[in-house]
């Protein structure tokens, strides 16, 4: 066995310095130790590096024997770990047995039964080293601190855009669902009346009481508007929102907000 002689073989990656020097692993340490391997390829690489084997001419018999010994130990302790490792055992044994077969003299190098294993080991080692490099690189939050000074945000929320189409669509939806409005038509005239109802209420909010004639702007409004205004007053009165009073015949008529007092 070469194990003793090679026990100080340098392996990339520091975690290996803590590994046992030979195949003997104290049983209670094995579990911790196995955590260090990322899988069968990692274990194989470890064995190859540890024994300073030539990856392009792997002595399959040695490697397979050592690998199987490890896996047996693993099986003894941590069964669920074994699946991927067992598959590799089978593959190693298969490669070894194919190498025992007599080969034709003109065999090409790529027909070496080890070729695929070697390719995978090299690919995995390259990735393993790349992973170490990535891990060591300074990263934002781990070695790189990015400027993030404060600035006062103006809490000026841009109000949503609403179009007339959105508004009428909303009204249409209301009407669709409110069945008791289905026969009702809101025409332009009615909208005018409704608008004037609001306007009159608004004026009476500040003035409390106004003379009836003050509610009409005879100088500026045309007849249709005066009529609408009159209808609005009547509608407000009908809804009990206004009180219209007159002390005596031909005296001024007053309009005020209806209040109970």
């Amino acid at each position: 066995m070469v194990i003793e002689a090679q026990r100080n073989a340098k392996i990339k990656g520091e975690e290996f310095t803590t590994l046992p020097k030979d195949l003997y692993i104290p049983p209670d340490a094995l579990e911790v130790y196995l955590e260090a391997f990322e899988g069968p390829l990692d274990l194989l690489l470890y064995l190859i590096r540890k024994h300073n084997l030539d990856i392009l001419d792997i002595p399959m018999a040695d490697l397979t024997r050592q690998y199987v010994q490890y896996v047996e130990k693993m099986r003894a302790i941590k069964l669920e770990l074994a699946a991927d490792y067992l598959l590799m055992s089978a593959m190693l044994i298969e490669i070894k047995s194919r190498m025992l077969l007599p080969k034709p003299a003109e065999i090409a190098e790529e027909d070496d039964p080890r070729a695929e294993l070697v390719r995978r080991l090299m690919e995995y080692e390259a990735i393993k080293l790349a992973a170490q490099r990535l891990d060591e690189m300074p990263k934002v939050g781990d070695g790189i601190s990015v400027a993030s000074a404060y600035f006062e945000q103006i809490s000026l929320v841009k109000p949503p855009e609403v179009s007339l189409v959105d508004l009428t669509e909303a009204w249409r939806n209301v009407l669709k669902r409110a069945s008791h409005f289905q026969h009702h038509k809101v025409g332009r005239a009615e909208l005018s009346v409704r608008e004037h109802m609001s306007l009159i209420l608004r004026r009476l909010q500040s003035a409390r009481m106004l003379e009836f004639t003050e509610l009409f702007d005879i100088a500026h409004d045309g007849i249709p508007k005066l009529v609408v205004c009159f209808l609005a007053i009547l509608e407000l009165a009908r809804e009990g929102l206004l009180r219209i009073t007159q002390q005596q015949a031909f005296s001024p008529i007053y309009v005020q907000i209806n209040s109970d007092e």
Partner: protein
Amino acid sequence: MSEASNIRELKNVLEAALLTSHQPLSLDDMLRLFTERMERATLRMLLDELKQDWAERTMELVQVASGYRFQAREKYTTYLMRLHPEKQVKYSRAVMETLAIIAYRQPVTRGDIEEIRGVAVNPNVMRQLQERDWVDVVGQREVPGRPSLYATTKHFLNDFNLRSLDELPAMEVFVQPGA
């Protein structure tokens, strides 16, 4: 021999820490930057100097409740806000329908709106419409509880580009067959 051997270097460490920190840094935080013991008075002195160094520059070293931070001077706010345009939120269906009801049926009380929509009016909905200055209270209905009467405002007409409410599309209701 200290790590950061002179005042310039000490201030630089503080500057780098304050410019890269997401939160204000307390004096205790900043003392942790240095392995060597530093008096709080020394730290305060350094911060004062740092503040002076930045007096004419883009950032301002300010002290807030939880510590110190660098913040962009107010004059840059207008520019910086352009990087963070507020997302336009959309009004909920409840808001739009409530607005439509007030526009077409004004003046109405909250009770009227609830009756038409068949659901309670969320106070938040009325608040949004009033904050937008599209709706306001024009009176009270003289019934128990004296509920407020809501109507649309001039501002509403302006925003919708209307001269008066009768420019709102007249809504012909589709009478459902058999309804």
